[in-house]
């Protein structure tokens, strides 16, 4: 601990990446060995899913590293690109009509850049209300000017929702990077790392435990495996991991555990909501390219982060009474 505290923030972050990539390498190596063993088809299916999750983890780690290396501006742009791709996927799955064209243009070419500029310039007061207050009004106004009354509420709700999840939600990740704490500087990357690790832990644990436990699913029509028990265990697991990581955050141990619990719960529930959404759009699982245009799977990966990041961001700001 003494040794860790003697390092500068940059050195600590470097160490963090060393641990992160080292751990990933280790897990990947083990996965390769497991894959070479003989196994039943059922195990094989689980392994394929695990491999996909592991790949997402690798991508996430590399993105995170890039975000740190490229500094505040780079991180903001990087997440803006992800927002763009996620929103593109979302809009593709929600059947929009011709009269929505202007509202969609607004969402993609005005709302998205403005939101990220606000995040990048640390104007957090406007940042948090820009979409829920101003865009909330602007989208239906443009849509009404389009002159198509058919399913007006439904269409606007879809666009509104997509902007909330893909732009508002995801933009909180770079905002977290830029958050300034009174006594610790340049610790933003640690917070994002903390958030990503605890949401991923909760997500992986939930998947793993629910397939092991085989309890009654809460909502069979939406997700065949999601159960309250496995969800609770996953959240506690996230809290535990959050506790282990408390030294990299500005939190004390109990605070870190509570924060991790909140983020893990928000992330897994967000993923559950996304599953419901996919079912509505007629997609049963991602990666079935050719069946439904637009199901490329990015949205699925960022969904937990989209839901967890705003909740986490606001709890942190509220708890520390941060003004900027």
């Amino acid at each position, binding site marked *: 601990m003494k040794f860790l505290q003697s390092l500068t923030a940059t050195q600590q972050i470097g160490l963090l990446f060393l641990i992160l990539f080292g751990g990933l390498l280790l897990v990947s190596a083990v996965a390769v060995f497991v894959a070479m063993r003989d196994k039943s088809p059922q195990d094989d299916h689980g392994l394929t899913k695990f491999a996909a999750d592991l790949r997402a983890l690798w991508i996430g780690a590399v993105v995170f590293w890039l975000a740190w290396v490229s500094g505040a501006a780079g991180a903001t742009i990087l997440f803006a690109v992800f927002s*763009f791709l996620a*929103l*593109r*996927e979302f*809009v*593709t799955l929600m059947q*929009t009509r*011709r009269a929505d*064209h202007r509202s*969609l*243009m607004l969402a*993609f*070419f005005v709302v998205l850049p403005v939101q990220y500029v606000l995040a990048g310039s640390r104007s957090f007061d406007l940042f948090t209300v820009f979409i829920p207050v101003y865009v909330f009004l602007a989208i239906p106004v443009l849509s009404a000017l389009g002159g198509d009354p058919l399913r007006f509420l439904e269409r606007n709700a879809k666009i509104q929702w997509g902007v909330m999840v893909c732009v508002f939600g995801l933009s909180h990740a770079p905002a977290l990077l830029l958050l300034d704490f009174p006594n610790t500087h340049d610790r933003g990357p640690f917070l994002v790392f903390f958030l990503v690790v605890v949401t991923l832990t909760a997500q992986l644990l939930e998947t793993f435990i629910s397939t092991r436990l085989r309890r009654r699913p809460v909502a069979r029509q939406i997700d065949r495996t999601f159960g309250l028990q496995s969800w609770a265990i996953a959240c506690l697991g996230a809290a535990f991991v959050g506790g282990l990581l408390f030294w990299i955050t500005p939190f004390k141990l109990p605070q870190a555990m509570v924060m991790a619990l909140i983020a893990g719960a928000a992330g897994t529930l967000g993923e559950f909501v996304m599953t419901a959404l996919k079912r509505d759009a*007629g997609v049963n699982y991602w990666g079935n*390219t*050719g*069946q*439904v*245009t*637009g199901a*490329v799977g990015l949205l699925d990966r960022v969904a937990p982060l989209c839901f967890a990041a705003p909740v986490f961001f606001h709890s942190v700001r509220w708890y520390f009474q941060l003004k900027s």
Partner: protein
Amino acid sequence: MNKADALGFVLAAVARLITGAQGHWKGVPPKAEQRIYFANHQSHLDWVLIWATLPADLRAQTRPIAAADYWTKTPLKHWLTREVFRAVYVDRERKEGGPDPLEPLAAALEQGDSLVIFPEGTRSNKGMPQDFKSGIFRLAKQFPHVQLIPCWIDNVQRVMPKGEVVPVPILCTVTFGAPCNLQPEEPKADFLTRARDAVIALKPGGAA
């Protein structure tokens, strides 16, 4: 790299950014053999989308058809279609006693180029393609060795509806089906129906 190649590269990148331009090669692999791709036609972007979906080496030898009166009107349009896309120009109005409107297409095929055609002749926004014009039948008869590949372009009408100028980012796919060549002694009407059905069968999520 000259100006035209650079612009082509940029256009393909923009098309990918906005539409994803995913190609699903269900019936055939993307191979550099002589082909006629025929697809449903819903938007001006149809050609750009198919073109962006093709691998770079196939792009160079695959050519679109452009209406001569419209696409040669201004120097920019002419340069774009001639230098970047290497379009084959056809006259929309068929004059009595004039040359066969399919003549330029036949010339391109004789050179060994591949073509992308929209046999409906015009854009439709009804969802299902309209009846096919007979041009494709005549080409199939004249060039039996050229593979006829049906394609379904999905979602592109949502990217840029009629009357709008700015495209909205929405993912699109192009599904390429198995070759649908003319059978010996097959009557024209049967072939045109069969070709249209082959295109519709590729629609993601079923033909419903």
